[in-house]
C-alpha cells in the first residue's frame, strides 16, 4: 500500500461555546487507508468527521486534503466537499427525489455531467450496492439498510477521494446492519480511503488499518484493530471496551 497522506489534521482545536470538543487533534489518513474512530458518546467523533468537510469550522490548527488547506467558502469549498463523501447515521436521503435521482443529483448539478451519463453510472453504483431494482422508488419506501446503501452510492457517485462515515449502522435494525457493513467492507478492499465512526468491532477487525480511540475531545490511543481490541493500553479505552463488550 502506498502511504501518501490524504487527509492531514494538525493541532486542530474546536469549541462549542465553553465546551472544548476537539483538543489538539493530530491525525493523518493515508490514501487507501481505513481508519475507525471509536469512543464514548460526546467525545467528539462526529465533530471530528464534520470538520473534515467543513460542516463545522475549526478554531485553530490546519486541515489539508491532498496537500491543499480546506477553502473557507464559496466555489472552492463546494469543490472540496464534492471530493469528500459523507454518510450519515440518519441516511439523510432527499425525500422528494427517487433513489436514482438522489444518486445523480450531485454528478449533474456539481460535476456538470450529462443526465444520461450520470444515470448510467448511477445505475451501476446502485447495482453495486444491490439496490438497482429499487431505483425508481422514493426513500421512504425502502428499509433503513436499503436507504443507507443508497446513501453510500450517492457518496460514491461523486468519485470522492475519501468517504466519512458517521455511525452508519447505529440507526439500523440489527438484521440490516450486516448488509451495510458488507458494502463498506467491499469498498475498503477496493482501496477506498475511509474514516469510519463505528462501534462495530467485527468491521473494525476485518476492514480497518487503524483504530483511533477518542475521549473528551482528544485522541487517547491509536493502534491496529487487533492490538487495540485485545490489548488496550489506556485505562479509558479498557474501561470503554469492557462496557461495550458486556452489552
Amino acid at each position, binding site marked *: 500500500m502506498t502511504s501518501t497522506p490524504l487527509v492531514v489534521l494538525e493541532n486542530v482545536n474546536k469549541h462549542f461555546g465553553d465546551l472544548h470538543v476537539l483538543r489538539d487533534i493530530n491525525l493523518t489518513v493515508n490514501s487507501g487507508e481505513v481508519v475507525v474512530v471509536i469512543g464514548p458518546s460526546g467525545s467528539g467523533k462526529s465533530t471530528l468527521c464534520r470538520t473534515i*468537510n467543513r*460542516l463545522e469550522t475549526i478554531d485553530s490548527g490546519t486541515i489539508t486534503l491532498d496537500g491543499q488547506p480546506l477553502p473557507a467558502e464559496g*466555489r472552492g469549498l*463546494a*469543490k*472540496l*466537499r*464534492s471530493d*469528500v*463523501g*459523507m454518510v*450519515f447515521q*440518519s*441516511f*439523510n*436521503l*432527499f*425525500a*422528494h427525489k427517487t433513489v436514482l435521482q438522489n444518486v445523480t*443529483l*450531485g454528478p449533474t*448539478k*456539481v460535476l456538470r455531467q450529462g443526465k444520461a451519463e450520470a444515470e448510467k453510472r448511477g445505475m451501476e453504483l446502485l447495482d453495486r450496492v444491490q439496490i438497482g431494482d429499487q431505483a425508481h422508488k*422514493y426513500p*421512504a*419506501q425502502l428499509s433503513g439498510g436499503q436507504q443507507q446503501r443508497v*446513501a453510500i452510492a*450517492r457518496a460514491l457517485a*461523486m468519485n470522492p477521494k475519501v468517504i466519512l462515515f458517521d455511525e452508519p449502522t447505529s440507526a439500523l435494525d440489527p438484521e440490516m446492519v450486516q448488509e451495510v457493513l458488507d458494502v463498506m467492507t467491499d469498498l475498503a478492499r477496493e482501496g477506498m480511503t475511509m474514516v469510519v465512526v463505528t462501534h462495530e468491532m467485527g468491521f473494525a477487525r476485518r476492514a480497518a488499518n487503524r483504530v483511533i480511540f477518542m475521549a473528551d475531545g482528544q485522541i487517547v490511543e491509536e493502534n491496529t484493530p487487533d492490538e487495540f481490541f485485545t490489548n488496550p493500553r489506556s485505562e479509558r479505552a479498557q474501561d470503554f471496551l469492557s462496557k461495550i463488550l458486556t452489552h
Partner: protein
Amino acid sequence: MEAFLSNIDRVVDGFSWTVRLTLVSALLSFVLGILLTAMRASPVPLLRGLATSYVEGVRNTPLTLVLLFCGLGLNSALGLSMADSVAMDVFWWAVIGLSAYTACFVSESLRAGINTIPLGQVEAARSLGLTFTQNLRLIVIPQALRTVVGPLGSVLIALTKNTTVASVAGLGVQEASREMKLMFDQGIAPVLPTFVGFAIGFLILTLPTGYFFGWLSKRVAVVR
C-alpha cells in the same frame, strides 16, 4: 326566492368582482409572501428585522384597520391614486390592503414549511458540494412548497371571505357582499333568501378551493 332569482345577474356580477379581487390579491400576496420569507431566512440582520417586524405588525392588526388605512389614509387623505376611474381606484387600493395583510400569512406558512425540512438533508446536499442557492432551489424550496399547499389553501379561502371587508372598511369596492347590501337598501330582495343565496355563493367558491388544495397537497406530499 323568485325576487332573488330575478336579480341573479347582479348576484353573479357581485361574485365576479369577488373572484377578481381574490385572484389578483392572491397572486400579489404570494409574491410578497415569498419575498418576505426570503428576507426572513437571509443572513442579513437588517433584512430579517424588517421582514419580521412587518409580518408581526401587520398580521396582528385587524384587517379592517389595514383597509381603512389604505382607503381613508392613503387614498382619500393623502390623495394617492391608483387608477383614473373611482371604481378601479378603490379596487386597486383594496387589492393592496388585502395583499399587504395576506402576505403575512403566506410568509408564516412558507416559513413553517421550511422548518419541516430535516437539517440532515440540507447538510447532505452541502456535503455533495451544492452551493447555498442550489440547496435552496433543489432541496429546500421544492419540499417546503409541497408541505404548505394545504395551509396556503386555507389562506386563500380566508382571503376570499376577507374581500367582503373591503366594501365596509371605507373602500366602496364592488364585491358580492356589497351587492347584497345594495339589494337590501333598494328593497328589491327579501332578506332571508338573499342571505342564504349569497352564503351559498361563497360556499360555491370556497368549498371546491378547499377540496382542490386538499387533493393537491396529498398528490404532491413528500413521503417521509
